[in-house]
C-alpha cells in the first residue's frame, strides 16, 4: 500500500508513509532523519491543559508573581515566615506541658520522675549549647579558668539544688545579693607573703596533692599554710564549698596544678565570674540546665530510680 500512497503523497505534497511501519512521517527531515507521526492520545493533551489550569490556580492562591517592590501575596496569604511561626508555635505548644510540669516540680524532686528528668536533660542539653558553650565548651569540658562540668569536683556543690543556685545567681556576679562570692587574697602581689614564702606554700600544696615528695620547703610551707590558708581551704587542704575554696588535694585544677600555675594563683589569686542566669532564663530552663549538668556523670547526691538499679529494666527507646 505504501508505494502507491507515496506516489500520491509526492504528487499532492502530503507526508511520506514509512513502509516498514505503515506510519506517516511528520513531513520534514534532517540529514535524512525523519520523524514518524505517532499521535499522542487526546487525554494526554487534556492532562497538559489540566496542568496549565492547576498552575494558574497555584499562582493565584500562592505568592508567585514578581513585582517591582514586592510580589503577589496569593489569596491563601501563605508566607514562609508565617509557616515557620506556626511551626514554632506548634513546637512551643508541644513543650508547654513539660515546662509546666518543670515549673511545678521542685528540682530536688526531679529524680523521682525519671520521664520528666529525661526531658529536662534533653532540654538542658539544647539550652547549654545556646548559653553555656562559650565558656564551658561544647562538651562541657571547660578549660583553664572555666570549670569542667563532667567531673566530680565541685567548687560550690554538685547536687541539683547547688547547681540550680549557681546557675540562678552566678558566681561573683555584681548586683546579685545571693550570688556565690568569695575573694582569695593576692598573697604575693599584696606583700602578704614574700616570694620565697609563696614558693614554700606551693611546695606544700604540691605535696598534699601528691605531685611532689615532701621536702624542707614543703615543711616551711605547711606552717605558712596553717597560718594563711586553712580558714578557707581547711586544715587538710580539702577546700570548703561555703567559699568555693577548691580542694587542693585532688587531681582537678581549675587554673592548672603545675608549680608555675600554683605560684601564679598564690601570688595574684583568681576570682572567676559566672553571670547570674536567673534574670535571663526562665526558672524551667534553669532547672533543665541544672539537670543536664548534673547528668554529665559527676552529679552529686545521686538518687537511684525507684527500683534498685542493679536489675531494673533500662529506660526504653526506639
Amino acid at each position: 500500500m505504501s508505494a502507491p500512497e507515496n506516489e500520491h503523497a509526492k504528487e499532492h505534497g502530503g507526508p511520506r508513509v514509512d513502509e516498514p511501519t505503515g506510519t506517516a512521517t511528520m513531513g520534514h527531515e534532517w540529514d535524512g532523519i525523519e520523524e514518524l507521526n505517532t499521535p499522542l492520545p487526546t487525554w494526554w493533551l487534556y492532562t497538559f491543559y489540566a496542568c496549565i489550569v492547576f498552575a494558574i490556580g497555584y499562582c493565584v492562591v500562592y505568592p508567585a508573581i514578581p513585582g517591582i517592590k514586592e510580589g503577589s501575596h496569593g489569596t491563601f496569604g501563605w508566607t514562609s515566615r508565617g509557616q515557620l511561626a506556626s511551626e514554632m508555635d506548634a513546637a512551643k505548644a508541644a513543650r508547654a506541658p513539660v515546662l509546666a510540669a518543670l515549673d511545678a516540680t521542685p528540682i530536688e524532686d526531679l529524680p523521682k520522675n525519671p520521664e520528666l528528668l529525661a526531658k529536662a536533660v534533653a532540654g538542658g542539653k539544647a539550652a547549654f549549647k545556646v548559653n553555656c558553650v562559650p565558656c564551658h565548651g561544647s562538651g562541657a569540658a571547660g578549660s583553664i579558668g572555666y570549670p569542667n562540668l563532667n567531673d566530680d569536683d565541685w567548687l560550690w556543690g554538685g547536687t541539683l539544688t547547688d547547681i540550680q543556685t549557681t546557675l540562678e545567681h552566678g558566681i561573683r556576679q555584681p548586683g546579685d545579693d545571693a550570688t556565690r562570692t568569695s575573694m582569695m587574697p593576692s598573697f604575693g602581689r599584696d606583700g602578704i607573703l614574700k616570694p620565697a614564702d609563696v614558693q614554700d606554700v606551693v611546695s606544700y600544696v604540691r605535696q598534699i596533692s601528691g605531685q611532689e615528695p615532701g621536702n624542707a620547703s614543703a615543711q616551711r610551707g605547711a606552717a605558712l599554710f596553717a597560718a594563711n590558708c586553712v580558714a578557707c581551704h581547711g586544715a587538710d587542704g580539702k577546700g570548703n564549698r561555703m567559699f568555693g575554696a577548691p580542694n587542693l588535694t585532688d587531681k582537678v585544677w581549675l587554673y592548672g596544678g603545675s608549680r608555675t600555675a600554683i605560684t601564679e594563683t598564690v601570688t595574684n589569686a583568681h576570682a572567676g565570674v559566672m553571670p547570674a542566669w536567673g534574670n535571663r532564663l526562665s526558672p524551667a530552663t534553669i532547672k533543665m540546665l541544672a539537670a543536664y549538668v548534673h547528668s554529665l556523670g559527676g552529679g552529686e547526691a545521686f538518687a537511684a530510680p525507684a527500683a534498685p538499679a542493679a536489675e531494673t529494666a533500662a529506660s526504653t527507646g526506639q
Partner: protein
Amino acid sequence: MTNMDPKGLTRQPPKRLHAETQAVHPRAVDGRFRRLKWAVMTFCLAVYYITPWLRWHRGPYSPDQAVLIDLEHRRFYMFAIEIWPQEFYFVAGLLIMAGIGLFLVTSAVGRAWCGYACPQTVWTDLFQHVDRLIDGDRNAQMKLAKAPWGPAKIARRLGKWSIYLLISISTGGAWIFYFADAPTLAREFVTLQAPSIAYSTVFVLTCTTMWFGGFMREQVCIYMCPWPRIQSAMLDEKSLLVTYKDWRGEPRGKKSPTGAPLGDCIDCGLCAAVCPTGIDIREGPQIGCITCALCIDACDGVMEKTGRPRGLIDYVTLEDSARERQGLPATPHWKLIWHARTLIYLGIWSAIGAALLFALGTRQHLSIAVSKDRNPPYMILSSGEIRNAYAVRWKNMEGRPRKMQLTLDGPAGAKMWSEDMAKEMAARDLTRIIPADTTAPLRIYVTAPVGTHEGKLSFTLRALDQDGGEVSYATRFDAPDEDHD
C-alpha cells in the same frame, strides 16, 4: 507488511498530532488461557484481600497479624519473620528478587507478567467483566456507547459506575489493613475513628483504582507504564510472543474472489474483538500486546469449528517463526526454557534467595551498638582516675523480656557504672532486664586507674536465658598522653 489491514486502528496515518482514544469493548471468550487468567486473577485477588486477615501468634508482646508493616513501631512482620529497620536489607533483597524474578519470567515465557499478574491487568479484566455483566457483550456495549443519553443509559451507567466504585473502595480499603491490626482498623474505620491517614489512603487508592481500572485501562499499559519499554529491550529471538502465523493464515478471507487457494485465516476478526487492549495481533508483534493470549483462545475456537488445526495464533518465538516458515518443526517447549539467559537469571535469583534465607536463619536476636563520647574524649576525676563515657544501646529483638549482661573488656582495673546507678556500685559487668522487642539506651561510664594508657576496649552483651547468644562491640578507651599538669 503488505498484508496489513488498511482499517487497522494503529496504522492509519493521522491527520492531527493527537488522536481520539478508541474505546475498547473486548468480547467474552473461553479457552485454556482464559481459564488460566481466571485462576491467576482469583489467586491474586485472594492473596491481596485475605492476607491482612491471617493471624500468626507471636506471644503477648507482638502483634498477631501474619503480615504487618508496622510503620509506627518500625517493624515488618511476615509470618515467622520479624524485620527491624536496620535489617531493611532483607526487604531490599526481596525487592531485588522481585525485579530479577520479572527478568526471569520474561526470559522464560515472555511478557507473562503483563498478561496475567500485573495489577493493572487483573483489575482491568475485573472491570471489563463488570461491563459485560451490566451492558452485555461487545456489540451491546458498542451500541450503548453510541446511543444518545437517556434515562435507560443513565441508569445503566450509574449502576455500572456504582459497582466500579464498590470495587475501588474495597481495593483501596484492603491496602490499609497491611499497616495496622486489620480487625481493629476495620472497626475504627466504619465507626469513623480511624486515623485520617487511613481515610486519605483509601480515598486516593479508590480514585486511582476507579480511574486506572475503570477508564484508563489499556492506555496505562501503552502510554504510561515504563515496563513494556524495558521489556521490549529484554525480548530476543528466543522469547515467547503471541504470534499470528501469517505463513499459515495468509492470504486470509472467507471466500477467494479469484478462486486462488486461501490460508487458514477466515478473517472473522474475532482475535481483534476479544483483545483487551484493542489491537489486531495479525499486524505482528506490537507494544500494545500484553500477551494475555485471549486471541489464541478465540482463534483456536474458530479453527476447531471450521475443522482446521489449532494454533494459527500461538505462543511462538521469533526463531521458531523462521523455522516454521521454512516448514521445519518447532522447538520443543522444554528447550525454550533451557537456555543460558533464563538459567543465569534463575541462578542469580536463587542465589539471592538462598543468601537471604541463610542470613535470616543465622541472625542474632540481640545486638549492641556503642557510641563513644568524643567531646570530651576522657575526663580526669578528682581521684585522678580517667573516665570515658559511652552510649550503649542494648537491643532485644525477641518478643519477650530478656535478662542480659554487659561485660567490659578493657584496661586493667577498669570498671563501669551507668547513669541509673551510683558510681560506688561500679563493676566489670552490669545486668539488666530488657523489655520485649526493645532497644534500651544506657549511658555507661568507665573509669580506669591513674596512669592507664589509651587502648582497646570492648563491650560484650550476653543473654542470660536458655537461648543465650552473645555479641561484642569493639571501641576504645582514651587517656591523656602523659601525666597532665
